[in-house]
């Protein structure tokens, strides 16, 4: 990409990889529900959502690859675990607990909508063009998951108890989504990633708390400040390596195969 200044390339690739990696593993975790959804409609929904997330990841990998010359497949499957930039919340298994699957999507989907919105305002046209499309699709995800938060949070005493339990268990991982990335300021200053993380954090907590309120659910953990667990720097949970192993099995047999 000739129109990108040299010093901005690496940070931008890093930012795109963080976004793509979050989507790739969230999509993979959700694809595990295919055939096992609690009702037919949600079986279809989770399969479609997973397909969307994988497609979004692929498009973002392609964009990152257009900057540094790697292929989307290579970026998705050809890295070692410490080279991934995803947050822990997309790595942990949900143990096929529906409440956990919904709550995970809830925190991630709202974050992704805000991140993609910032992408859609980027001064780098290939990114803003793509992100405008992704935002429209992401809104469908947010509506779907908000709907389930309210339904289950206000459903029966048992559904409420299980949703609150899932929030207490997986919720604390959500703030790591905001862990600062290397050299992000240079991208913000250049207008490639306009806005600020602080504003985005406020918008996210506002959106999340708004829906939780409607769902009669609460967060018991400290939602007020980003966590620094290390996912954005390549420090991951024990769950990433085996998941990657499973996802890459076919790719590694013949990396140059045409699909």
């Amino acid at each position: 990409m000739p129109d990108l200044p040299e010093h901005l390339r690496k940070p931008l690739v890093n930012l795109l990889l963080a976004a793509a990696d979050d989507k790739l593993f969230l999509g993979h975790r959700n694809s595990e529900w295919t055939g096992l959804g609690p009702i037919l409609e949600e079986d279809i929904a989770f399969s479609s959502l997973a397909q969307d997330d994988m497609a979004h990841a692929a498009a973002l990998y392609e964009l990152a690859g257009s900057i540094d010359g790697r292929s989307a497949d290579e970026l998705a499957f050809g890295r070692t675990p410490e080279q991934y930039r995803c947050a822990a919340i997309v790595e942990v298994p949900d143990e096929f607990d529906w409440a956990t699957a919904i709550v995970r999507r809830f925190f991630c989907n709202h974050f992704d909508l805000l991140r993609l919105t910032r992408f859609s305002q980027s001064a780098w046209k290939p990114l803003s063009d793509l992100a405008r499309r992704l935002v429209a699709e992401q809104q469908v995800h947010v509506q779907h998951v908000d709907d389930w938060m309210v339904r289950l949070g206000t459903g029966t005493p048992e559904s409420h108890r299980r949703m609150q339990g899932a929030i207490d268990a997986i919720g604390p991982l959500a703030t790591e989504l905001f862990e600062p990335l290397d050299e992000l300021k240079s991208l913000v200053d250049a207008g490639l990633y306009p806005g600020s993380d602080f504003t985005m954090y406020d918008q996210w907590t506002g959106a999340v708390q708004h829906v939780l309120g409607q769902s009669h659910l609460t967060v018991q953990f400290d939602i007020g400040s980003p966590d620094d667990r290390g996912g954005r720097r390549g420090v991951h949970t024990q769950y990433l390596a085996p998941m990657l192993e499973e996802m890459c099995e076919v790719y590694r047999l013949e990396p140059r195969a045409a699909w």
Partner: protein
Amino acid sequence: MMINRQAIFDVLRSIPDPEMPISIVDLGLIESVDVSGSAINVVALPTFVGCPALEMISRDIEMRLGRLPGVASVNVRWVNDPPWSVQRITDAGRAALREHGVTVPETGSRLEVHGAAGATVPLTVGAAAVPCPFCGSTKTHLDSPFGPTRCRMIYYCDACRNSFEHLKNV
């Protein structure tokens, strides 16, 4: 020999979308066609990012336009600017879709993001009444916000008891 633009569009109008019973022109996928010498360059818009049908559509376009007399090469490029939206579907396309039990949202595109995500109101996906394509009744409800392809949802008509598909408003 000059390549006839009318002939190109006739060919494009004869190519059906792999997942929808209308042509790729009526679906609004074709943004521009440029002829230079014996080469045809087609710019097309994906309905959904990474739609699995894109490669198939590219192949169809290349193969069928390649058969026109005087054509040496056909190139298909997918772009996101302008973004595709349901607004691009032609009236003929809408009528044909309705006949096949698929309805298209009439309201404007939702591509604009309104402020913080906190402004998103839950339960709105199926809030607006969607008239049944078979009997016209508005006594319909959203059965599934996802459907057989990524761009469709499933509705049910409480009057004539048929299910039908509705395109997502993106």
